[in-house]
């Protein structure tokens, strides 16, 4: 099919001016991929799909959304009303908004799986360090983008979430106060904050699209890792990306869309995990909701923040918990990549996954002394995991890796 198209006169005309055939062949039809990739390798293409969905739904929402905190009547505001108008009056507005809101959570589900896959199979190791680092940049921009986006409906959770997070920057010495004012455009979260967050919420996905391009380019230079974590040298160990992985990715997309559509059509708020109930109350700068927590995908880092008595230390450690991901390729010096052949690392990485879930649970729940202690223990292990990687390779007895696949 693709070959037939590439033989047409029109394609030839384009090809002589762009080199399109060489690109398609090197990146798709003749791009060699390991033949043993399992379903954990589906999440990269799924993340790309969700990014596209978010950008498309976002562009259409922006046609009706109005970033203004000006009051309309009662406690309602232009921004809050415009979201409700999208839900009630705009044709299919409910669908597009729920696709966007569910898509935000779906994006993090998919990306966290993708990152977990990279951790487990050692995809961050040489020669893929930069590929991993670009991925961490993508994660940070995603989190920023999600945070900016959450302010836009101008509900109670929007307002107080933004207040709490911008307040964090105020903890930094000397520059904190000014940084906080720079983010807010005032002394408290208000109309200027809403306007700049909307601007940045539109900008960040465009940055993402560009950096994702870099991520894929970097991948195609160093090539995919595989579940065995070994370098593949023989041609028979590889298969063409198209049709083998295009079809497998398409199957993954179908399965993903089933789950996505369930939430979009039947459970868009996901029991308050995707859209918090309090966010249907208009923002009120004089009254904080009884329990405030970020959306689930930010809660692990929120727990790390809460685990420290000193405000400054909490902020620093939260920053460090993300920054340490950049250092991961250089902390872990083991020559063996895949956890399949690293018995100690395997236990550590499983415990790490559990820890992140525990951190997430603690951050989502109201603070109690017990949960605080649990959160502190989890925080300790979170950092211990990375630091232990410095010493584990010195004593870990790795299993023999296969010669090939």
């Amino acid at each position, binding site marked *: *099919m693709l070959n037939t198209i590439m033989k047409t006169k029109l394609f030839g005309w384009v090809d002589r001016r762009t080199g399109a055939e060489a690109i398609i062949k090197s990146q798709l039809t003749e791009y060699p991929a390991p033949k043993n990739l399992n379903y954990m390798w589906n999440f990269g293409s799924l993340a790309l799909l969700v990014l596209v969905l978010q950008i498309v739904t976002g562009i259409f929402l922006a046609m009706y959304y109005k970033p203004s905190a000006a009051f309309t009547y009662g406690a309602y505001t232009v921004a809050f009303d415009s979201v409700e*108008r999208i839900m009630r009056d705009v*044709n*299919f507005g409910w*669908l597009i908004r729920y696709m966007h809101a569910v898509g935000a959570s779906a994006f993090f589900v998919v990306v966290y799986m993708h990152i977990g896959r990279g951790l487990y199979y050692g995809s961050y190791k040489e020669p893929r360090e930069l590929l991993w680092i670009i991925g961490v940049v993508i994660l940070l921009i995603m989190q920023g983008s999600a945070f900016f986006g959450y302010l836009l409906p101008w509900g109670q959770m929007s307002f107080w979430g933004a207040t709490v997070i911008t307040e964090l920057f105020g903890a930094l010495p000397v520059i904190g106060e000014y940084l906080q004012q720079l983010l807010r455009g005032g002394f408290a979260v208000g109309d200027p904050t809403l306007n700049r967050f909307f601007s940045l919420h539109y900008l960040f996905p465009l940055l993402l699209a560009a950096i994702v391009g870099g991520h894929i380019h970097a991948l195609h230079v160093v090539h995919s890792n595989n579940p065995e974590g070994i370098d593949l040298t023989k041609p028979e160990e590889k298969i063409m990306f198209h049709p083998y992985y295009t079809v497998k990715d398409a199957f993954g997309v179908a399965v993903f869309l089933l789950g996505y559509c369930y939430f979009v059509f039947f459970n868009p708020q996901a029991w308050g995990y995707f859209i918090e109930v309090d966010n249907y109350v208009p923002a009120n700068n004089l009254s904080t909701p009884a329990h405030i927590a970020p959306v689930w995908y930010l809660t692990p880092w929120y727990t790390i923040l809460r685990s420290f008595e000193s405000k400054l230390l909490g902020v620093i450690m939260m920053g460090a918990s993300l920054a340490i991901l950049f250092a991961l390729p250089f902390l872990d010096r083991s020559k063996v990549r895949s956890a399949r052949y690293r018995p100690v690392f395997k236990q550590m990485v499983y415990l790490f996954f559990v820890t992140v879930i525990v951190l997430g649970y603690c951050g989502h729940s109201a603070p109690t002394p017990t949960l605080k202690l649990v959160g502190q223990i989890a925080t300790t292990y979170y950092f211990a995991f990375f630091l232990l990687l410095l010493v584990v390779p010195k004593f870990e007895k790795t299993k023999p890796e296969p010669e090939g696949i």
Partner: protein
Amino acid sequence: MTEKANESRRNFLYLAAGGLGGVAAGAAAVPFIGSMFPAADTMAASKTEYDVSTVAEGQLVVIQWQGKPVFVTNRTPELLKQLDGHDEMLKDPNSEAIEGVSAPWMTAENRKYRSIKPEYLIVVASCTHLGCIPGYKPSAGRAEWGDSVPENWPGGWHCPCHGSLYDLSARVINGSPAPHNLHVMPYEYTSDTSVVIG
């Protein structure tokens, strides 16, 4: 299995899968394109009520309907007389050019008035050329308007953008770039003076 059999089966599967994917993509595009059409609240604001008795004799009032300007004029008997005797200057004296939009009240005798009540002309104020609002120049001849209007000017509207001319029933005059008379939108009288437009 031969290489050839494999190929044709594969091509069939590509086409079937691609076709189905195309249908799905098309279906998914429906809500997105649909969302760009006017929203329910915009549709609900598509009717305008107006009391024509507030328009003084000889006066022109511009009101809004669906965000568009609408002329409401109260034509004096003198102005109504100016409607006669220049049919040969008009592109479409009986407003028949656009099929199927003639209101039931558009009977043979009030075609020249283009209104339910002869004195109150109610038309969309957008020039049918490119949508500018024509200026009101009701008196006949050039006395008041100079050479912006032709010598035998029957009184009416003159569009400032590209010079289209309309008579006092908003019928377009020959030589204008505008193709049609100013549109008469659907409206009805709900009482003696109250009009619902839309």
